[in-house]
Every structure is written in C-alpha cells, then in structure tokens.
C-alpha cells in the first residue's frame, strides 16, 4: 500500500469532523471519496496534508513511513503528496509562471523542474500562453488547470484533489479529467474528493462513501454505482 490511513479522527473545537475513518490508496490507483457537503471530505485531505491537527490514536503510514512525523511543507517536498485545495486557492497576485515556480520551492533538481514544466505546458497549452498573466485574471477553467499544474510541480507521487469539478463547464470538466488520467498513467496516484458522485465514480477505480465523518460504504466504483443505497442518496 502506498498510503494507509487508520482511525483518522479530527475535531474542530468541540465538534468532531471525522470519527476514526480508515482507507488505503495503492500505487498508481485512482480512489474517490464521495459524500454530501459537510461529511468531512475536505477535512480528510487536509489531515493527510497535515494542514489540520489529528487526534491521538490516528495512524497514517506512507511508503512505510509515519506520515505524522512530517510537517505540511515536507509532506509535499519530501513525500511527494500534492494537494489541490478546495476552491483552488491560487496566488492571484502572482503570475501563472510564478505560481508554478513557487510550487518547486524545495526542489533542487533543475532539470527535473524544467521537464515537469514542459509537461504541464503540453497538457495545458493555455497556461503557456498565459505565463506572464496574474493568476487572479484567469478564467475558472484556466484556474483549475493552474491549480493542477501547480500541484504537479510540487510533488506527484500522490495528488489529493478537492472538488476539482467545482464551477467548471461540462466540456472543461471532461478535459480536466482526461488530463488527470494522463498524469495517473504516468504513475501519479489520485485521491479525489467530490460531491458529484457520478463523475467521481466514473473516474475512479475504487470509492468510499463518507457520511457525517464516518465511512459507510466502500468498494469498486462499478459496485458503488450499482449500489441501491448510493444510487438513492448520491446519484439521484
């Protein structure tokens, strides 16, 4: 297993957001977590990225290492776990190029960086055209491209994606998922979190269903798509 999460518990003040969930991601896999708004999907990703503190008893192992021993920046720079946050969170005051460059802050491999940059521009040619433009002036679709490109530059053993489809027109969405499939074929494992369950399950190989901070169902995407409970609650 690439990433194993056990008994993940996170609280915000007195409110427990995650009640001890466990899941795995294997090398090269695409896994999704679906659930309603407020189920704890974003919190799950933030816990892996070490942006929110976890409670004692939580276990997270990544390639045989204790992930909890790493602070947020080293989860990215040393473990190669990148994160496309909810709402993209680009640095609107920096140019497209600067956003991509900043993501390589801790990297020393100049050649690798140059290659990765070429790769990002070949997947998203629009970004190459807009290199010197401030990220804040990009359209929604371009911003999502940049958010993914930026994550790709920062580390790409695993990519955590938080609602990447949000605010995208259907055609752009298809393009984006195709780009993600390309990255996945090159070896990036993907953990996707989505409210749009149908989309997520079509894209992922396996899925988990999160309800009120607890995982209630899991299985291959096909099985979840066919599951009456999932169909009723999430596929309408």
């Amino acid at each position: 297993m690439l990433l194993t999460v056990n008994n993940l518990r996170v609280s915000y003040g007195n409110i427990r957001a995650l009640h001890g969930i466990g899941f795995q991601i294997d090398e090269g896999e695409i896994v999704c977590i679906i659930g309603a708004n407020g189920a704890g999907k974003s919190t799950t990703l933030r816990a892996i990225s070490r942006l929110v503190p976890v409670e004692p008893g939580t276990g997270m192992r990544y390639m045989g290492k204790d992930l909890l021993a790493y602070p947020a920046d080293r989860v990215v720079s040393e473990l190669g776990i990148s994160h496309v946050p909810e709402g993209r969170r680009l640095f609107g005051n920096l140019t497209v190029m600067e956003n991509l460059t900043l993501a390589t802050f801790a990297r020393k491999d100049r050649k690798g960086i140059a290659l990765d940059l070429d790769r990002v521009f070949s997947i998203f040619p629009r970004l190459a055209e807009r290199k010197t433009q401030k990220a804040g002036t990009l359209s929604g679709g371009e911003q999502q491209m940049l958010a993914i490109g930026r994550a790709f530059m920062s580390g790409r053993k695993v990519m955590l994606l938080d609602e990447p489809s949000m605010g995208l027109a259907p055609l752009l969405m298809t393009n984006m998922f195709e780009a993600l499939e390309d990255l996945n074929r090159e070896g990036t494992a993907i953990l996707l979190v989505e409210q749009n369950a149908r989309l997520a399950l079509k894209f992922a190989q396996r899925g988990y269903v999160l309800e009120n901070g607890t995982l209630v169902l899991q299985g291959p995407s096909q099985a979840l798509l066919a599951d009456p409970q999932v169909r009723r609650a999430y596929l309408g």
Partner: protein
Amino acid sequence: MMTFFFQNLVNALQWGSFYALIALGYSMVYGILMLFNFAHGDIFMVGAYIGFGVATGLTALASAGAVALPHWLVLVLTILISMFLTSFVGMAVERFGYRPLRDAPRASAAITGLMIGIILETANLALLGARRISFPPLIRSVTYDIGGVYVTNKKIMIVVVSIALMVGLHQFVRRTKWGMAMRAMAFDFVVVPLMGVPLNTIAAMTFALGSALAAAAGILFAVAYPVLDPYMGIVFGWKAFVAAILGGRGSVLGATLAGFLLGFIEIFVAMIFPSTLRDFIAYSIILLILVFRPHGFFGEPYSARLRL
C-alpha cells in the same frame, strides 16, 4: 525661496529615509503574518546600539593599529555587521514572541509586541544605565554648497544607502523564490505549505530582513544625530508604523513612498507652521488621506486568507 525649498527637500529626504527603512519591516511582517510587530521601533533602537558597539569596537581596533581601517570602511562594516546581528534579534522576537501565538487572536500578538518593546527598552536601561551615549563620529562632516543649498556628505550618504537598501529589498521580493513565497503568504497564508514552502522559515526571514533594515536606519540616524537613548525607538516606531499603513499592507513600494511622504509632510509643515504644531498638523493630514484611502496607497481591499 527656491533654495529654502531645496534645503528642506534635502532634510525631508533624510527623514523620509529613516521612516521608510523602518516602515518596510512593519509592512512586510503585517503583509505576510497579518501581525503588527509593535516591537519593531525598539528593534531600530537595538540596531542603533548594536551599531554603537560594533563601531566602538572597530574604531578601537583601528586606532590600536591592529588593522588598517579607513573611516569609511569602518562605517560600511558597522552597517553590515549590525544589520546581520540585529536580524537575529528580529528572528528571536518572531521565534519566541510571535510564533507561539500564530493561531491566537491578533490582539494577543499585538500586546505581546508592546511587551517585547518594553522589555527591550528596559533591558537596555538595565544593561547600560540611564545615560545617553554618543555614537562615535565615523565620518568627518563635509558641507557642500550647491547653489545656496547646503548639503552634507552625511545626508547624501544616508539617502543613497537607504535607497540602495530599498531597491535591493524590492529586487529580492520581486525576483527570488523567497520573495515569491513572501508575496504568496501575503495573499493566502494557509495554503503556502502546500507548495512545499516552510512557513516558519519565511516568517523568520521576513523578521530578519525587517530588523536588518531597522538596524541600518538606526545607524544612519546615529550618524546624523549621534545621541542614543533607550526610548529613541518609540516615536520612530509609531511614525514608521503610520507610514506602513499609509503605504498599504505588505507593499514594499508603498512603505517606501509613504515613508518619504511622511518625511516631506513633516518637514514642510514645519516650514510653514511653528514646529510645536508639526506632528499635529502632519498626522492630521495623514489621517485625512487614510479616510479616503483606508487601505493605503498600494493596499488591496482584500484581507489575506488566514483560514482553510
């Protein structure tokens, strides 16, 4: 009349240099951490005192014949060494004063800053006593008469060194990856670690830069007005703080321009009105500017995102 104007212009540039150098430290810290470092004025004081120590030491070495140091080199070394040493004071303030309060209410950090300031002042008092000390004269004062306007070599030096430091800082923030990280932090603090950027390193570096500039201001001030006292940083600190606000949150260019503007307003108000009214009128003008531009000259009306 014109010579009178230019005479005051020279003075305004000199005072503006002090304000701008200090304002930059306020502005950068406020920009990236949404924190008013109210101890910053006292860092200016500490910088001046460290400069005094370094200058005294170097002068003693030179006059003992241990090393051949021309006066200008003593000054250059004093500025550089003091900037370097004072940056550690700034980093210590960040590490032990503010970092534990990163997630605390901003008021706690502000109060802590004021306390750190008082500690720096009183610690100085305890160490060196209540006497004022005079800064060693590192360069001989030479006055040039340029068409009736008297300019000293010290004033020229102060303005040139200040502007060089500001240009250097501007380039650093624009062109290096650390500067890029600082700008990113000012925009969206919480997701910066997702870029593999260690927040604490950037925070410490920002304090180091700001403190180094304040130290430079302290020494340049001491060159022009060679009397140091433990409370010299208070008024300077507040005025530079006003300049930082006027410049706009986190804006290097804004803090620089506002620092100079402050110098100009003060000097030119004093040119017209009695000097006892100087600050009253000068800061009323600034208040008026802020009524119409509450975010300052280059501040943008967004607030940095501090939460997920």
